[in-house]
């Protein structure tokens, strides 16, 4: 069991809470406390909007332990609108329906399960945006 290891990341996994650097303005996800741009301390929390676009993607056929149940699934590099790239699964979309540049938004989903008696780990995934720029359902 790895309860503490997942529990301590709950703000990031459920809320996409990162940091911003008050010295150079850089937005950081995941939080890392030291800004990689200017090497100064960056500890102010910043909640990301959860909007972004697909920068790259890959469909996984050979899953690691804990992820076999959903194979095949698609992992993406998502470019958040505030700048950072995140590695995240894409969901609510066919594996062959993903394209680079596709607009996506963050949702909370089950990431992994450790057997019948084990823990379920939830976290962020990204799905195609349900609303267009005018805020209308597409």
């Amino acid at each position, binding site marked *: 069991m790895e309860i503490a290891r997942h529990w301590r990341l709950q703000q990031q996994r459920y809320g996409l809470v990162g940091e911003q650097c008050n010295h150079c303005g850089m937005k950081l996800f995941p939080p890392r406390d030291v800004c990689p741009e200017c090497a100064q301390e960056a500890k102010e929390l910043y909640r990301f909007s959860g909007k972004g676009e697909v920068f790259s993607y890959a469909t996984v*056929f050979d899953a690691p332990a804990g992820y076999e149940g959903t194979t095949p699934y698609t992992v993406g*590099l998502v470019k958040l609108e505030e700048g950072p790239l995140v590695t995240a699964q894409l969901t609510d979309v066919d594996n062959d329906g993903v394209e680079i540049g596709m607009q996506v938004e963050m949702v909370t989903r089950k990431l992994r399960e450790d057997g019948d008696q084990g823990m379920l780990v939830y976290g962020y995934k990204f799905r195609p945006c349900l609303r267009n720029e005018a805020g209308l359902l597409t």
Partner: protein
Amino acid sequence: MSAVIEVFIAGTGHTAVGEHWGISLRHLAWEAIGPALQAAQLKKPDAIFVGNMLAARISEQQNLGALLADFCGLRGTEAVTVEAAGASGGAAMRQALLALRSGEIRTALVVGVEKTTDKVGADVTSAVAAGADSDWELAQGATAPAIAALIMRRYMHEHGVHLEQFAGFAVNSHANACVNADAMFRNVLDATRYAQAGMVASPVNVLDSAPDADGAAALVLTAGTGQLRPGLRVRVAASSLATDTLAVHDRRDVLVFAAAKLSAQRALQQAGLAPDQIDLAELYDRFSVFAALSLEACGFAQRGEGWRLAANGAIGRSGRLPISTFGGLKARGNPGGATGVYQLVEVTRQLAGTAEANQVVGAKWGLAQCLGSSGATAVTHILQGVESN
């Protein structure tokens, strides 16, 4: 400042790469260590540096330094494991070199050993992936091939390259492995079969991916030439280790292997060479796109052009820059933390003129570069073949 202590390779040993179901990690290591010590005519090295990445998870075994010193009749010898995922073997070499150059020791044994077959399936996939970022990549179900696939998809998108145009890497590796009795995959591969291969993590297919394997390789290093027999000698001309972000998504440019670039530039500078003076290179072709990016990082190709060297035959044994001359990770096989030592043994054999059917004729300068996970650690060594008096 005193003169730099020159380091030479006095002996090598290695096992066949493959699935050694009947042999344990310690026996496997001895099969490489014994011949290396014998070739160097050395009974006991001053220190042992072990390169390994998976034993703790796959064989439930740590403390390999003590294990191997004891098992190989070297009880009492200083010994330690060096871990840097897929770069462990190169990193062990680097640490041995630093120790020799410090003057504290005069001889060193570098051994890379890996037993991946003590577990199978998803457990191995997870163990191998642990070289990447556990909290922010692996928690999302990303595997080593998946991370390589994210890079490859973007490479194809930005540089306008099609899947079939990567075929030359696997085709070259298999062609070279065919004449290497110790290689894992000794079958000829053609571009058609490559294009039809099943996906591991699309767009990375089975033939883009190196097989995880068992193997052990060893080198004996000496400070100065005192213990060497006359004849063709192999000198360590340059050594450099650099790091990049662990997670690929944290990179400013995901299509540049920055650590590989930095370590290659430093190594070339130490050796006083330009990239076009390198006669052959053993690069970290764990995935086809890694081979392309490594060629670019070392200055053998411009950004976005590395794939062309495979497409136009430049990487063949008689080409402009032979790579993977014994089959590379792809076809010789990828014994994890031993891979970096295999590369160095192979370059040594090329420069000593003992590469047999895999010989690159007239090779004087060889480069070996291994990577930890997707280029987070990179170790580059340049070896030189020199005639002694």
